[in-house]
């Protein structure tokens, strides 16, 4: 047993080193390999040191799991990354809950079945099951199997509250009873599964980045709880790392959307009411052609591209990279400004642009890019809306007041491409579109960029 625990500590060190190497795109790939070696060590150490294991079962399970996992990993589109991570979170949480359940049945009626053991099992089953069902709902919403709109019904929050209360009561009761009451245990399992569904179903598509991050954190918490069940350092350390990671990302996403976590989870109804208010204002916008946009870009020395999710929806990542390359070959400085919530999950837009061969040095996050707008000639906004709305700086009545935005309006000229004048997720009109230094080019991002590319060539 001593050597096994040593191997787990070694695996945990490799996980930590692996994540450390993620601090730069240069070393990140090596970091991922290091972490996967850590996992291999943990698995081998477990297989060789525990007696009476059912090897045939383990090998069958691993082969099935590897085939499914590899198939997902090889075939997933980068735009589908959020779904993929959501469903993987679910499997992780599910695995933890299953291990804890197995331990419950294996130890049932023995002297080992202490209150501490039952309490940790209950916690693991609760968090793991909730992660499992919640993740599948999130997956369904992102994949379009379930409506992406918030599904709300009267008394929803009261029902969720009652379910949560029932869960706590049953959990405490099963633990104090030393796990003797098997029906109570099943109760925890079932209610946690229902709660996972009812807590995720009212959350709208735009809030999914928060939900995925949160479920990511839960899957870590579930693994750590299972570590307490098995008194296993390897699970506890790894679970804590993942839990912390998910929590940090959740926080970043909430800040990026100017919402509190409570508001995302319980606020589906409130958001819709807000969206009705601000849309009344009228403003004049200047619409222009791609030829004119090409001329404006031709006169610029420094161009900052601001991609929003609309760009990814239009599958225009490659088109914008071609335009950017052309601008660079004309001697202009080109950068990309990436808002934390530009994609459907943390860092999503960066992956989509990296896939289109945009070098990562050009991808700048909020803090780095905002000072760059001061001496920028053209900010080129593609399918982004709320994240470039200057109202967040001054309009205290706006739902996005205080939200960190990209200060595109500080540039000499702003070119905005949008399909229509429809407001963004926050449901408010963007005053930026009426500014004197803003021109709009309406149309599908991909078509517009293809024409713009031709126009730039013909100059």
């Amino acid at each position, binding site marked *: 047993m001593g050597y096994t625990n040593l191997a787990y500590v070694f695996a945990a060190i490799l*996980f*930590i080193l*692996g*994540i450390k190497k*993620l*601090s730069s*795109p240069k070393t*990140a790939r090596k970091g*991922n390999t290091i972490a*996967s070696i850590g996992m291999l060590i*943990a*698995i081998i150490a*477990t297989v060789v040191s525990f007696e*009476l*294991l*059912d090897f045939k*079962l*383990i090998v*069958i*399970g691993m082969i*099935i*799991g590897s085939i499914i*996992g*590899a198939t997902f990993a*090889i075939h997933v589109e980068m735009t589908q*990354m959020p779904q993929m*991570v959501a469903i*993987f979170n679910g499997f*992780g949480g*599910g*695995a*933890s809950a299953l*291990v804890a359940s*197995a*331990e419950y*049945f*294996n130890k049932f009626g023995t002297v080992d079945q202490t209150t501490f053991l039952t309490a940790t099992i209950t916690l693991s089953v609760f968090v793991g099951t909730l992660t499992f069902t919640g993740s599948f709902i999130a997956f369904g919403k992102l994949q379009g199997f379930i409506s992406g709109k918030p599904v709300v019904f009267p008394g929803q929050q009261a029902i969720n509250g009652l379910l949560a209360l029932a869960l706590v009561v049953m959990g405490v009761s099963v633990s104090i009873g030393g796990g003797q009451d098997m029906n109570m245990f099943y109760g925890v399992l079932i209610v946690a599964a229902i709660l996972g569904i009812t807590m995720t179903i009212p959350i709208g598509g735009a809030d999914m980045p928060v939900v995925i991050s949160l479920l990511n954190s839960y*899957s*870590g918490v579930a693994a750590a709880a*299972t570590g*307490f069940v098995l*008194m296993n*350092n390897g*699970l506890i350390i790894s679970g804590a*790392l*993942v*839990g912390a*990671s998910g929590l*940090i*990302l959740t926080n*970043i996403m909430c800040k990026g959307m100017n919402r509190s976590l409570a508001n995302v989870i319980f606020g589906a109804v409130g958001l819709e009411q807000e969206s009705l208010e601000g849309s009344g204002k009228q403003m004049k916008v200047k619409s222009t052609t791609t030829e004119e946009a090409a001329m404006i870009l031709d006169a610029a020395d420094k161009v900052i591209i601001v991609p929003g999710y609309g760009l990814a929806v239009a599958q225009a990542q490659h088109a914008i990279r071609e335009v950017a390359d052309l601008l660079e070959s004309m001697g202009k400085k080109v950068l990309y400004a*990436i808002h934390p919530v530009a994609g459907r999950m*943390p*860092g*999503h837009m960066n*992956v989509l642009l*990296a896939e289109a061969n945009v070098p*990562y*040095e050009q*991808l700048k996050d909020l803090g780095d890019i905002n000072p760059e707008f001061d001496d920028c000639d053209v900010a080129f906004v593609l399918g982004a809306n709320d994240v470039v709305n200057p109202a967040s700086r001054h309009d205290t009545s706006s739902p996005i007041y205080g939200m960190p935005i990209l200060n595109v309006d500080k540039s000499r000229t702003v070119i905005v491409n949008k399909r229509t004048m429809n407001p963004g997720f926050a449901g408010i009109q963007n005053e930026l579109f009426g500014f004197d230094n803003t021109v709009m080019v309406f149309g599908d991002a991909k078509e517009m960029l293809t024409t713009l590319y031709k126009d730039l060539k013909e100059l």
Partner: protein
Amino acid sequence: MDIINILTVFILAIFVGFEIITKVPPTLHTPLMSGSNAISGIAIVGAIISTKVGGEIGTWLGLVAVIFATINCVGGFMVTDRMLKMFKQK
């Protein structure tokens, strides 16, 4: 191992987690997520242990857990590698 000991390990690991994860740039947040997802597949260790010959139900739950956790590990590390491969310098 007593409870206080593993609680200490847990809390220290959370602090280490916060330290190293805040240093990951936003550019790499998606790979961070899929990679940490793969790490949460460490539940595979528990899954293997629960196939221990003994309880009938426990063994079968263990098998399903092995499948789930392997999906997590293999899929997570592979897709993270696929993404990180795309991050190129000029």
